[in-house]
């Protein structure tokens, strides 16, 4: 840790101990979230999500392909994330690194485990032809909390996706069959303090990070702990509670944005 970051750390920690944050937020409150959809006419679905200054674009392309042998009646999802050098002076071009892989896998897990895309409705011809859903996530501006921004952008794109049946001579286009999405909420910990939706400054001093995806029943659909710190059982229960609360609000905002 450099001297600058140790000063920043003390400053942010002292704020947090008193329930305050740099930008005036409550400890468990998200920054302002905006969601736009249908940006990219070439894509089957697309969305731009901003959480504070963090900005992510997700696009969905679909293709006809073969099912995996062990799921002959099921469509396929594939999720990729690029930590584009556009978004941060610290991102480099090149093959995806550990961070980008973890990001893509956590977003993928949130989508997959919640069953938001009804994969069994994406079978065209059992054993022969299914739809492949490519979810590509581009980080455009990085100011902390990529997990939630990426996940939310992917969901907004998914919920507005049209299956391009016409392009493949399979009838008229129709909306991608979807179910209730799981909303991902990420918090970090430094010293003994927990905060939701970390900004970049807060991420840089974080010791541990946890992402919780919850559904509209209030159930948990996916979790991922990261970084080198640890949590007590009580901290984890607290985080789940707060993630649920935020999840409710974000879900509402998501449904408004996609017109549902």
């Amino acid at each position, binding site marked *: 840790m450099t001297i600058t970051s140790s000063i920043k750390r003390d400053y942010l920690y002292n704020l947090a101990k008193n329930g305050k944050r740099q930008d005036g937020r409550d400890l468990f409150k998200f920054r302002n979230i905006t969601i736009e959809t249908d940006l990219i006419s*070439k894509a089957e679905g697309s969305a731009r999500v901003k959480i504070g200054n963090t*900005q992510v674009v997700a696009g969905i392309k679909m293709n006809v392909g073969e099912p995996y042998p062990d799921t002959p009646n099921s469509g396929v999802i594939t999720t990729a994330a690029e930590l584009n050098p556009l978004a941060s002076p610290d991102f480099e071009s090149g*093959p995806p690194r550990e961070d980008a892989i973890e990001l893509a896998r956590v977003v993928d897990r949130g989508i997959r485990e919640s069953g938001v895309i009804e994969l069994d409705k994406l079978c065209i011809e059992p054993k022969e032809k299914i739809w492949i859903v490519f979810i590509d996530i581009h980080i455009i501006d990085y100011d902390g909390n990529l997990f939630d921004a990426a996940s939310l952008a992917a969901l907004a794109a998914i919920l507005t996706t049209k299956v391009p049946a016409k392009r493949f001579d399979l009838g008229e286009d129709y909306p991608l069959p979807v179910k209730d999405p799981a909303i991902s909420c990420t918090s970090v910990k430094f010293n003994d303090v927990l905060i939701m939706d970390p900004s970049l400054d807060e991420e840089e001093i974080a010791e541990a990070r946890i992402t919780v995806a919850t559904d509209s029943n209030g159930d948990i659909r996916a979790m991922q702990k990261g970084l080198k710190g640890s949590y007590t059982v009580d901290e984890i229960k607290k985080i789940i509670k707060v993630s649920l609360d935020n999840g409710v609000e974000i879900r509402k905002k998501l449904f408004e944005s996609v017109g549902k």
Partner: protein
Amino acid sequence: MESDIKLIDADGKRLDGRKIDELRKIKIEAGVLHRADGSCYLEWGGNKVVAAVYGPREAIPRHSQNPLKAIVRARYNMAAFSVEDRKRPGPDRRSREISKVTSEALEKIVLTDKFPRAAIDVNIEVLEAEAGTRCAGLTAAGVALADAGIPMTDIPVACAAGKIGSNDENGKKTGGHVVLDLGKREDNFGDADLPIAISPRTGEIILLQMDGHLTLEEFDQALTLAIKGCNIISEIQKDALLEKYQKGLEVD
């Protein structure tokens, strides 16, 4: 072949209703990103491009440093969802070539000798592509460089001209029309494309590529038209920068 598509009608109107020397609609916004030192969002017809500039900063790896001046590294990248058929993520040969010629063009304009050993990184992200992304990317990069305060002799700008409608049904040449700024179907089924970039103050050509088939006269017409396009777009670039600075003043 698909040459039976009628790219231009009897009145000289093109598929999308444009005149021969008319640009597609262009919208430029400067300073759209928080992290980047300079940035630009540009829509040009169906193209949507973001450019972000980082630098001058120490060039890494070390062996890429030039002890006498800064290096300019443009990186052109297309999003997987930017085109009809999903593109595999990561650079391909086409994007690496565009990155190279764009870097070379920008290096001519940037006052690189002010920053020995430094790198100026120009990231061009194509979110949606519809003919002419290299010109769109370079034009956006010019604005982002200016927004980043990188000292330059000028704001570089790019535009293409091309030729359409010269094949009759037997594929024979029958004249054809030199037009400004090819659209998607004009690019696919046209006869030639001539993207250029210039320094608008001096008119010097800093990027030039040509594909297709042009007589010498057609080449001259196309070059003149492309330069004309560059000059029009140059004004839009300046307006975008002005608007950003005005916004900045309002906020303060």
